[in-house]
């Protein structure tokens, strides 16, 4: 079930009302209800996915219990490897098998041997990368004795399958989300209204911004040889907004829906396009994944404690692994590597933690220096997105070459799409303004207009709501579902 579908528009209000009016009598009832509707939500795509998530959850539940009960370090380690093997094995089969098989066959062609790659005709279960990482963090934390495993399998199943964040995050840590299932949730008017505002903002980002950028981006990237440099630059900028609107929009809806049900989910995007350098960008983009890699890959590898070279190696490893997590394609690995290269100068000059505050603080406008830094970072990020979006490495390189070698103004955006498809562009500016105003908050509409008279506040919400209707096309899947 997509968040931007009519199905969800009917599903969620019913869940919300039943949750607070019927199932609010006890904690157990609330949790069972959450589990039921989460499985319904996930099974809406394909009921067979449920078998996979239930299997993976049960294994982790049992393994963690046995691991906790054991005092023998060797056997604890075996249980950890069992959990890692099952989870990463499933991920490997469903997501990476064909990639490895095809790459292996391709490698043989370099030696003049032709191999027919053996590929599996299987569909990638939606959100498998997200819930796999969520359950992995649970078993690893239990192994490290940082977390007591839960005895309640229903709570554990509900934690893994919690529908707002199940298919595209935020990737929640057990230590943050699991305890919330042990506390009876009480209805809060303020939290519900705030959740609604965040859902509205998320839908605006997805339906208006991302989905309207998509056809322009597809047209430009699929036919990049037909366009001049100016159009290709615009294509990269539109993709930057598409991927941000798509993914952060999903996170906003997830966090808002969670809040309406009494849960506090992790902030996943903190206005990343206002970052002043790449390091800051990565502290603000897909925060739950970056922190996961930091805690479970970077730090176990030695982090920054083993000297400069080890630090550089570890940074490259997490960026490459992060790229590979996004998809089974060399473009994603290259994208990860490129980000690591952009990060490197900051690391070498010890400036990677220079910008940890919110840009401009409470000032209405950035300074000239800040504006330049933001523009430069956005430009670098947009260049890396070309590799992320391109079908293959040669297309990405060809795209960049054409930007640099062709005339800028030979073709115009009107050669790409009809003028009507550009009508949403002022709404991109509206998004930037709303985000800039709300950059100190958890989401752009958190405090916007709270002191205004209702007519002004509702006016903004009405504009956003009607733009959803006017600019919506047929339901489009979220990009990150494929990861």
């Amino acid at each position, binding site marked *: 079930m997509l968040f931007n579908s*009519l199905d969800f528009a009917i599903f969620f209000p019913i869940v919300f009302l039943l949750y*607070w*009016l019927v199932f609010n009598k006890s904690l157990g009832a609330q949790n069972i209800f959450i589990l039921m509707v989460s499985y319904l939500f996930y099974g809406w795509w394909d009921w067979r996915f449920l078998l996979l998530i239930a299997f993976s959850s049960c294994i982790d539940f049992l393994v963690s219990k046995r691991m906790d009960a054991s005092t023998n370090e060797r056997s604890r380690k075996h249980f950890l490897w069992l959990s890692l093997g099952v989870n990463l094995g499933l991920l490997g089969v469903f997501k990476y098998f064909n990639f490895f098989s095809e790459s292996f066959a391709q490698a043989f062609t370099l030696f003049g041997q032709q191999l027919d790659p053996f590929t599996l005709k299987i569909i990638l279960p939606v959100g498998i990368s997200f819930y796999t990482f969520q359950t992995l963090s649970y078993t690893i934390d239990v192994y490290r004795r940082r977390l007591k495993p839960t005895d309640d399998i229903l709570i554990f199943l509900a934690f893994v399958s919690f529908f707002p964040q199940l298919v595209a995050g935020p990737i929640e840590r057990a230590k943050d989300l699991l305890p919330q299932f042990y506390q009876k949730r009480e*209805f809060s*008017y303020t939290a*519900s*209204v705030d959740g*609604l505002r965040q859902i509205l903002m998320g839908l605006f980002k997805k339906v208006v911004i991302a989905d309207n950028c998509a056809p322009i981006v597809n047209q430009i990237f699929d036919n990049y040889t037909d366009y001049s440099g100016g159009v290709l630059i615009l294509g990269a900028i539109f993709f930057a907004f598409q991927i941000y609107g798509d993914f952060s929009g999903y996170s906003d809806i997830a966090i808002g829906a969670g809040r309406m049900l009494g849960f506090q989910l992790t902030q996943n995007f903190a206005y990343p396009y206002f970052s002043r350098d790449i390091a800051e960008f990565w502290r603000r983009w897909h925060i739950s994944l970056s922190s996961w890699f930091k805690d479970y890959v970077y730090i176990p590898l030695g982090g920054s404690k083993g000297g400069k070279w080890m630090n550089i190696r570890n940074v490259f490893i997490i960026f490459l692994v992060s790229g590979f997590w996004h998809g089974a394609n060399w473009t994603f690995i290259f994208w990860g590597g490129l980000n690591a290269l952009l990060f490197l100068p900051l690391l070498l000059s010890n400036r990677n933690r220079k910008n940890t505050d919110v840009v401009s603080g409470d000032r209405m406008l950035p300074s000239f220096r800040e504006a330049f830094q933001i523009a430069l970072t956005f430009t670098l990020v947009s260049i890396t997105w070309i590799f992320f979006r391109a079908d293959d490495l040669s297309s990405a390189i060809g795209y960049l070459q054409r930007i640099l070698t062709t005339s800028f103004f030979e073709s115009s955006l009107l050669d790409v799409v*009809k*003028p*009507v*498809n550009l*009508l*949403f562009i002022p709404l991109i500016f509206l998004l930037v303004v709303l985000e800039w105003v709300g950059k100190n908050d958890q989401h752009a509409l958190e405090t916007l207009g709270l002191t205004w008279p209702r007519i002004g506040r*509702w006016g903004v*919400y*009405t504009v956003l*709501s*009607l733009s959803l*209707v*006017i*600019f*919506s*096309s*047929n339901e489009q899947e979220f990009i990150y579902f494929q990861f």
Partner: protein
Amino acid sequence: MLKLIRNCLLFVLVVFVTDKAFILVKNTAPEMVQDKRLNDLFEGKINKDLIILGSSRGQADIATWMLEDSLGMSAFNLSFGGSDIEWHLFVLKCLLEKAGPPKVIIKVLDDSFELTNAKVNGFRVDLLYPLVKYSEALEQLIERGEKNRLLSKLLITHQLSKNAYDMRTPPALNDTVLFYGAFPAPAHAQIKEKDKKIDNQIIIYDSSTELPQKKRAFQQFQDVLRENNIKVFYVIPPSYKPLNHKFTERMRAVVIPGSPLFAYDDKDPNYSCDAFFHDPVHMNRTGAEYFTKDLIRFMKKSLTTEE
């Protein structure tokens, strides 16, 4: 909880009321469209003896004004660039419902693309977007999954969507619409050198590539004509490349038995003359008039034989 429900309902009401202001756009959008033939169709204003249905080749290649003069019938061209047989069936049904059956229909067949999958031809939903004021247009958009029925009943903004704000018709290869509904390309517009290269691959016709839904629509199209006792002429207009005989044979096999099918005479050297073509698949005004003369001769003969 009650406060939340009350405020949510109040907000929905505000959105609902604001949405109603868009009735102005809904009523204005059809007036802003350059080609008003669909408006006239939905309003039942097209009441003619002879109707031409087809894609851009029907628009450009048939000199409607000549048909009217020579055949002594009022004629109107309801061909739409980029349209397919499903669209032609839709137009035909609307015509019958709103203005009654014409005496004669000329169905222009699109060489190679008539029953097969082609990117260039499809159901022109885009032409319906600004016309949701008319129930026929809205209903068709709902049936094709472009609009949701429930939301369409509730929200005018959903009926309209962004496409209704496209007040410009994209520049076409032809002039403006003439009184007869035709779009002739200017006589001076001639085929460019680079377009003269003939792709021999195109002349192959493979009936296994035909789409079931297009075949069904073609069958329904003929059923409607038969039920309403409408005389039909199938026409294959010239193209710069050689005539696709396989396609012509195939069409002869699928049309109502005995229906007249007129394919241009590919032995006539004029049909490979640069001065007659605007591009490889469309004639200019001079070419259209030359071809229509041939067509009129064929039609006259056929109509006289019947009498």
